[in-house]
């Protein structure tokens, strides 16, 4: 909580420019984008960022530890495919059963992929960029082999609970997102483990000489990232009611963009979940507004690039 208050008071003092930018952007959209200011649309934005949010939380862990995880999209795809195939064998699965399957599959697939990444990085000393790029190929390839590039569909209704249903007026996927964001925030700011991630990301040698198990920390962040990516893949499959090997291509860049845009340092040690959340919101608002404004697809690409740049430039200029 400390930090959050810090964040807000910093904004008031004009220090956290990116949050200021997000607020300004939101205000501009409220005024100028038709139908932006409806409850339904705000809900849409939240739903639209929820998948990226899960992945970006995991990415925050790896980037803070001075790593990176390029395999997130592929892990999401393979988990989605695996979960869909599994649930397909139970046409009458109940909602709790579906949720159980989703959580179990995330845990298993995410842990396996993440542990392989983590092992190569922490134990075999492979640069994170390479190790996770290799995993990106391997997981994606296996998803193709497994499904022959055909979507796995015809899933039981109950499978859609997490991705499609709402509890009251709040979509389940949004609740899940908020929960994961909160959990990640707590881990990173309130626990020793979180502090160790920052330490390792700031300076591995110092961390080691201070008695932190650097290998363990580096290993574990990839497992976390793997599990959250797999979970994202399953929410995606649930939302789309199928699992497909081509899902989530290029999501690593979206997630990295959200993390880096908020101000988390790409070389580790500085930043955190609040920054990632701001990045997610800014990107989510831009995407939504451009789409509501009916900007052509090509110009959307250009505009996205320019706005991200402007946001970061303003942020840097203040420092």
């Amino acid at each position, binding site marked *: 909580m400390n930090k959050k208050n810090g964040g807000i008071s910093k904004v008031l003092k004009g220090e956290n420019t990116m949050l200021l930018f997000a607020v300004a952007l939101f205000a501009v959209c409220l005024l100028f984008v038709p139908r932006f200011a409806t409850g339904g649309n705000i809900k849409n934005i939240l739903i639209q960022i929820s998948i990226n949010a899960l992945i970006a939380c995991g990415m925050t862990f790896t980037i803070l530890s001075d790593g990176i995880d390029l395999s997130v999209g592929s892990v999401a795809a393979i988990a989605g495919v695996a979960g869909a195939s599994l649930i397909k064998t139970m046409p009458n699965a109940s909602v709790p059963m579906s949720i159980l399957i989703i959580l179990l599959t995330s845990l298993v697939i995410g842990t396996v992929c993440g542990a392989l990444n983590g092992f190569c990085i922490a134990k075999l000393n492979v640069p994170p960029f390479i190790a996770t790029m290799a995993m990106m190929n391997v997981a994606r390839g296996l998803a193709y082999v497994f499904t022959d590039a055909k979507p796995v569909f015809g899933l039981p209704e109950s499978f859609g609970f997490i991705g499609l249903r709402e509890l009251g007026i709040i979509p389940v996927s949004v609740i899940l997102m908020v929960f994961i964001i909160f959990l990640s925030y707590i881990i990173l700011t309130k626990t020793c483990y979180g502090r160790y991630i920052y330490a390792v990301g700031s300076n591995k040698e110092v961390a080691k000489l201070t008695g932190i198990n650097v290998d363990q920390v580096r290993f574990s962040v990839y497992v976390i990232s793997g599990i959250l990516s797999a979970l994202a893949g399953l929410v995606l499959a649930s939302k*789309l009611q199928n699992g497909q090997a081509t899902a989530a291509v290029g999501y690593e860049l979206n997630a990295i963009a959200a993390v880096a845009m908020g101000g988390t340092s790409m070389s580790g040690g500085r930043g955190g979940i609040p920054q990632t959340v701001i990045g997610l919101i800014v990107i989510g608002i831009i995407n939504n507004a451009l*789409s509501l404004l009916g900007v052509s697809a090509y110009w959307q690409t250009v505009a996205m690039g320019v706005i991200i740049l402007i946001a970061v430039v303003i942020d840097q200029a203040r420092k």
Partner: protein
Amino acid sequence: GGSAAKSTSAAASEQTEKQTEKAGETEAKKEETKGEAKTIGVSLLNSTHVFYNSIQTAMEEQAKEYGWTLDVQDAAGDANKQLGQVQDFITKKVDAIVIAPTNSAGSKSMIELAEKAGIPVFTMDIASDGKPVTHVATDNKKGGQLAAEYVVNNILTEKKGNVAVITYSEIESCVDRETGFTDYLKENAPDIKVVDVQNYSGDQQKAADVMQNMLLKNDNIDVVFCVGDPAAIGALSSITAANAATKIIGYDGNPEGVAEIKKGGNWVADVAQDPAGIGKTTLEAIKKHLEGEKVDSEILIAPYIIDAKNAK
């Protein structure tokens, strides 16, 4: 196949004419009734692909004629992004939604969402696992068959020889073209051997690379079937560079392909889809539906062969 295609598209254009007339007659009436200036939300699979581009152009022309507004979005091959776009369309309260789904499965939830909001959904090109009002598409398996027929009838008339395929393994509709092609040969000309199938993943340069490798690996390839025109362009550059005699059959009917066929080089034929037909027919179906008429749940636009004879 070719004749069927013509009849369908001829019928389609006739319909168009009729409707335009009708629209002219009822112009005065329409101004009174609300909703004549419709907004249609369109989410394309990949608007950076020439094929979808042509669909878009045709739709825009047609929409202009109707006095409608089109809101075209690009899903860039990502189902999740497409879902987001459908949600935005619902927010915008469009009158109808057109989706070119990123995959045969997965658009069901989008259709349901829109239905809940009372907005009719139409699909194009790739069939959905949900129930749209109407689905307008090319038959991809059929397209593959057409290419194979062309090989048997016009190139390897003795029903003997070696052929290869450059496929796009990650895209379902392209894999359908591949299987349509190979299955037809297996059944009708077992002596024409498919000696190599390679993936180009949508990257022209990779198509050039795999073609290079195929030429080296196999002593003689008579024909290469490319599941998309970009692959054919890549293949052409390697075949030209190697000075090989391999003939190319492409797929899509894009202008650059037609230009090559007219030149009379190795690229001899192309399976043409009729993107303009797909686009137009879809809008027509929407119009009918909004005016309360009944429309077929599936309208197939048959592909047809372009070769030196009918290339224009």
